[in-house]
């Protein structure tokens, strides 16, 4: 057992999978340059020395390297592609959505695309084009699995599950969760470290997880918002409101079994999403809740999300943009009192 942050846990997970299976390799920009950074957030630091020829630094060509990951996967390799910032997925999306996601179906079930795409998201003082919550653009694509990792334990376990899965899997990570200490820690970073077992483990790609039990209101979130939801629950507890916190974690498919079990207990739900409200994953979850367990609701679904604007640069505006603990507490409190 050791205590690790998300970046280290992912690094170990990747290394272990590469050791276990020689068809696993990494591809992306600035991921293995000697004297470089191991990707923008240090996840692959040191791996190019350990696995010569299997940490592939590409030109700045997202459509190209994503397409190459798809092609290599079709031929029996298991690529882990690294998108430096999630925002650049727009450049790669043709290969992901038109090729990776559809190859299995279009081929009548004959082709496998066992690839992983990792991408960091989140508003972190970098302005509108390095900040977007990208998961919403991929959760509605049939043929893609989409997960979001908010703890080091999940990061390693879901990475391993994704590598071993025979389908394209997108793993969203958050820039403020890679590590709250050390050289590349960011202002506002949150502690997402976990105790990581020494033995091999996987975390399934289709299960949500209850982070805190409660009976008055359920709060759903993922990535940074799962942490903010947990902090909100602490505050609510001091007011006598017991919030149940669920890290949704698997965004496509969504685990309505875990969510439904909670709602049958609480009858109330707040869904928290970092991205803008319109067209968000929270909208899908709200509709799914109505279909799967709407009869257990004692009050309307409440969403806390960003306003429908691009991510602003100015810290004052960015902090007002991104949902925070206070907004989650206020929403849960008024819902619990309904």
């Amino acid at each position, binding site marked *: 057992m050791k205590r690790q942050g998300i970046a280290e846990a992912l690094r170990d997970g990747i290394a272990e999978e590469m050791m276990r299976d020689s068809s696993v390799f990494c591809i992306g*920009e*600035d991921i293995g*340059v*000697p*004297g*470089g*950074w191991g990707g923008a957030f240090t996840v692959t630091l040191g791996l190019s020395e350990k696995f010569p020829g299997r940490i592939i*630094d*590409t*030109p*700045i*060509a*997202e*459509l*190209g390297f994503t397409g190459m990951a798809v092609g290599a996967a079709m031929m029996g390799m298991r690529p882990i592609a690294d998108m430096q910032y999630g*925002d*650049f997925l727009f*450049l790669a999306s043709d290969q992901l959505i038109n090729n990776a996601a559809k190859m299995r179906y279009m081929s009548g079930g004959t082709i496998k695309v066992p690839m992983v795409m990792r991408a960091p998201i989140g508003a972190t*003082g*970098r*302005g*509108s*084009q*390095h900040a977007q919550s990208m998961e919403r653009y991929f959760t509605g694509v049939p043929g893609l699995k989409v997960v979001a990792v908010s703890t080091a334990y999940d990061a390693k376990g879901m990475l391993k599950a994704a590598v071993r899965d025979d389908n394209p899997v997108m793993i969203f990570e958050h820039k403020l969760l890679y590590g709250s200490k050390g*050289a590349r820690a960011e*202002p506002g970073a949150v502690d997402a470290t976990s105790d990581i077992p020494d033995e091999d483990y996987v975390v399934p790609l289709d299960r949500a997880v209850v982070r805190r039990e409660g009976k008055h209101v359920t709060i759903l979130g993922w990535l940074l918002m799962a942490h903010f939801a947990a902090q909100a629950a602490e505050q609510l507890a001091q007011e006598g409101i017991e919030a149940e916190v669920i890290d949704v974690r698997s965004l496509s498919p969504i685990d309505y079994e875990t969510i439904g079990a909670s709602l049958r207990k609480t009858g109330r739900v707040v869904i928290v999403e970092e991205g803008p409200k319109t067209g968000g994953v929270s909208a899908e979850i709200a509709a799914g809740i109505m279909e799967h367990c709407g009869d257990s609701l004692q009050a309307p679904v409440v969403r806390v999300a960003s*306003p*429908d*604007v*691009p991510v*602003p*640069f*100015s*810290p*004052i*505006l960015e902090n*007002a*943009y991104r949902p925070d603990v206070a907004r989650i507490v206020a929403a849960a409190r008024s819902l619990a009192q309904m």
Partner: protein
Amino acid sequence: MKTTSAPGAAPATATHRDRASLLGLYERIVLIREFEERVKFLFLEGTMPGTIHQCQGQEATAVGVCSALQPGDYITSTFRGHGHALAKGLSVQELLDELFGATTGCCKGKGGSMHMGNMDKGMVPGIAIVAGGIPLAAGMALAFKMQKKPQVVACFFGDGAVAEGAFHEGVNMAAIWNLPVVLVCENNLYGASTHIGKVMKNPKISDRAASYGFRGETVDGNDVLAVLAAAERAVAECRAGKGPVLLELLTYRRTGHSRRDACHYQPKDEREAWFARDPITRFAEVLLARPDVKQADLDAIKAKIDAEIQTAVVNAQKAPQPTLANLTEDVFA
């Protein structure tokens, strides 16, 4: 370093330019250096938010190109746009205010370091998606052509952008329609931490122009007069309907790619060789070789700039910050 120029190009000497315009160029490149050094200090000190991509060492590319443009011409820029902005005439104050997230910043605090711009001064907010500005600049040039306007657009991008699909698509369309866009590739040998030798088989970027059927040239990007001369030729061709032109400007980034990057991927001897070719020291030498320029003139320029920046920093730190009402403004026209 191989430097090729168009046949008949003026040699990069100071002889045919007058003293005032030469000192004006010098002032601009020193302004960019001093601005960037001050911003670096403010950032590392922790008073300035966000992240920064700086251009110390590349000042001559921005100044040489922008000095060849008319006020009505436009530039597009990148995440590394502070130098382009100052060269295009944005003020120190509006840039610093933007970096501090103030409403008086050139983008009202909504853009930040990676998106500097001011349309009134002919600069589109920096586009932080590598190569994202290339089709956009071609589109601006298409508009000028359709509107029968004499303007040109200079499109700045890095060596890294050449590998993107957007480069190929934008450049090809600029070529087939002879659009007035000067494609300015600042080749500083690295895209982020990756050396060009690792990501291109033909590292001579200007060669690419020929494959699209137009003219390209490689220029010493640390020689402001060479850049200016090449840019003047390119702009004249574009205005005459003979665009586009690709300028590959060879230069070097003296500072980190962003934030606290220590540049461990840049070999020491390479850094030293390029530091010895610093655009400011070199231009100072050219100027001092003239009988009518003295060291005291250059010192006075630097002193004036330092005072200007100092005042602007003080102002920026108390510039008005946005309020919540500003958050939802400016989404739609």
